[in-house]
């Protein structure tokens, strides 16, 4: 087992290094000069360009740039954001908790409602309910998250005034408010972004759970359970679901990129102070160091979650290690 984990860890490290190299090449090989954009509407003089080049180390040979980049990375230095004038690492650390709160809530909803619906679909395979649930979840998947977010913000937030449609906290909330009031405040701000992200991502969970469940329901031991006359509900949840849950764990690794991508739009629409809105803002301001830092962090998260899911899966299902 430990040998297997080690091999898989090595693989994850290689994957991350390759992703790092790709990001570096993208930054340097992109057509045009990012610095030309820094002046906004004002043209930048060649002299300013030269100064900027020296400041960002762009006058050095590519090899040296790469070493400098890697050295910085090892020391947790991802450069300085152009817009905020502060270290990128500090900004990322500041914004990460809000994104984790958002992503965690979406995950929770997906892995309860999504799994339950997926199991229901498998049990009623091919019937009307199954087909409708598939179509409905696919309709959610087909929605651009920013559009659904805007529609919900308009309808629920502005038209009906039911829930706040922007930010994470009420800026007018008294600083003396107790933690209970604060928690309710944050939760009420959380509802619309979480709902938006869940609607656009729940189809993947449902589909995986459905097909995993169908695989299991085909097996002979289910037939045995039926032959023994067990109630259908026990067969579904106690016999079949227990074995159909493992494959869904792998979904977590696949699913993170979807979540991160969605949160760029959803956070931008709801002004949620997380990594997604940071990245969306960096695009608008052409803040390359910040965009690069966010991409790096996301790549690291994707690789790490892929590794973690594989290990979890191997722990739960020994057959994987033998394969």
């Amino acid at each position, binding site marked *: 087992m430990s040998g297997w984990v080690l091999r898989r860890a090595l693989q994850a490290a290689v994957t991350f290094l390759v992703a790092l190299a790709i990001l570096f090449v993208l930054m340097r090989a992109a057509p045009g000069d990012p610095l030309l954009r820094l002046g906004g509407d004002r043209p930048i003089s060649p002299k300013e360009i030269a100064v900027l080049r020296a400041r960002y180390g762009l006058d050095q040979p590519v090899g040296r740039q790469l070493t400098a980049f890697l050295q910085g990375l090892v020391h947790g230095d991802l450069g300085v954001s152009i817009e905020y004038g502060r270290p990128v690492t500090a900004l990322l650390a500041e914004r990460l908790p809000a994104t984790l709160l958002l992503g965690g809530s979406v995950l929770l909803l997906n892995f309860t409602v999504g799994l339950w619906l997926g199991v229901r679909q498998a049990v009623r395979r091919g019937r009307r309910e199954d087909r409708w649930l598939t179509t409905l979840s*696919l309709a959610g998947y*087909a929605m651009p998250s920013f559009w659904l977010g805007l529609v919900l913000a308009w309808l629920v937030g502005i038209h009906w005034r039911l829930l706040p449609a922007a930010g994470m906290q009420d800026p007018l909330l008294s600083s003396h408010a107790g933690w209970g009031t604060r928690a309710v405040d944050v939760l009420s701000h959380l509802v619309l972004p979480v709902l938006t992200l869940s609607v656009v991502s729940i189809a993947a969970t449902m589909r995986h759970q459905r097909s995993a469940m169908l695989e299991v329901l085909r097996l002979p031991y289910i037939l045995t359970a039926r032959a023994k006359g067990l109630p259908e509900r026990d067969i579904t949840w106690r016999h079949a679901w227990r074995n159909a849950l493992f494959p869904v764990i792998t979904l977590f690794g696949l699913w993170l990129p979807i979540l991160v991508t969605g949160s760029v739009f959803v956070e931008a629409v709801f002004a949620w102070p997380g990594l997604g809105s940071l990245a969306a803002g960096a695009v608008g301001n052409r803040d390359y160091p910040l965009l690069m830092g966010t991409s790096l962090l996301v790549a690291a998260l994707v690789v790490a979650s892929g590794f973690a899911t594989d290990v979890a899966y191997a722990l739960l299902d020994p057959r994987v290690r033998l394969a």
Partner: protein
Amino acid sequence: MRPVLDALAAAWHHPQGRIGAFILLIVAVTAIVGPWLLPDPLSQPDILIGSTPPGLGHPFGTDQLNRDILSRVVTGARVSLGVALLAVALSMTLGAAVGLVSGYLGGVVDAVLMRLVDGALAIPRLFILLLVLAVWERVPVLALILLIGATGWFATSRIVRAEVLRLREEAYVRAAEALGARRRRIIFRHLLPNVVGPLLVTATLAVGDVILLEAGLSFLGLGIQPPMPSWGGMILESKEVLVSAPWAGIFPGLAIVITVLSANLFGDALRDAVDPRSA
């Protein structure tokens, strides 16, 4: 081509598949013919009138420049579908090429290509595109198509490779090798036709993904540039009039949902036809 036709026929007999294909056809025909029949949205902007709600003259209403939203949505369909089809065609070609080469040759080539694919898959596609596209003041449409296409083949190459690894051991491939067939002949005559089925499924599902991706990029201001109408760009512009003219954003969004949903319904039906275990 026989298996492809069979899959298409099976998907057509699938209730959801038929609905999807039918709506896609309608959208495609509207995108091709529509712009000639509807008023040119660029011709008469009138800032003084501003946006008007949906009504008789303008079934979807008009936007803040008093441009007819229906015409813009229809012209936007041309743009969105055009970008999606071309980009997906490029992705599938690249994915098939890499998958076939990697799977059939194996060894070092395979190892290097697949490590590259692993690394590329670790960076969500949106972030790759953001990094590259943010350089441009105005993104050229051709560049957008090429870049979306060039970033969409990683997962496809893995699917094709897995299929090739399986096929490589089949008796007929072994027989062809024993008869002295060249690599090129084996790849094109024996392997490619057998991966076309999974490739078709991937391509159909990719169309929906690319429409969403392009809309997202346009929403961030990095995709199709105004005044060319695109669904994502229209939603971006509607943000400013969210309260006073919500219809300006609702209709282009609905167009996206309907088109992407149809493509995915059809893709699902195709998948069931190609791989019956998933049904």
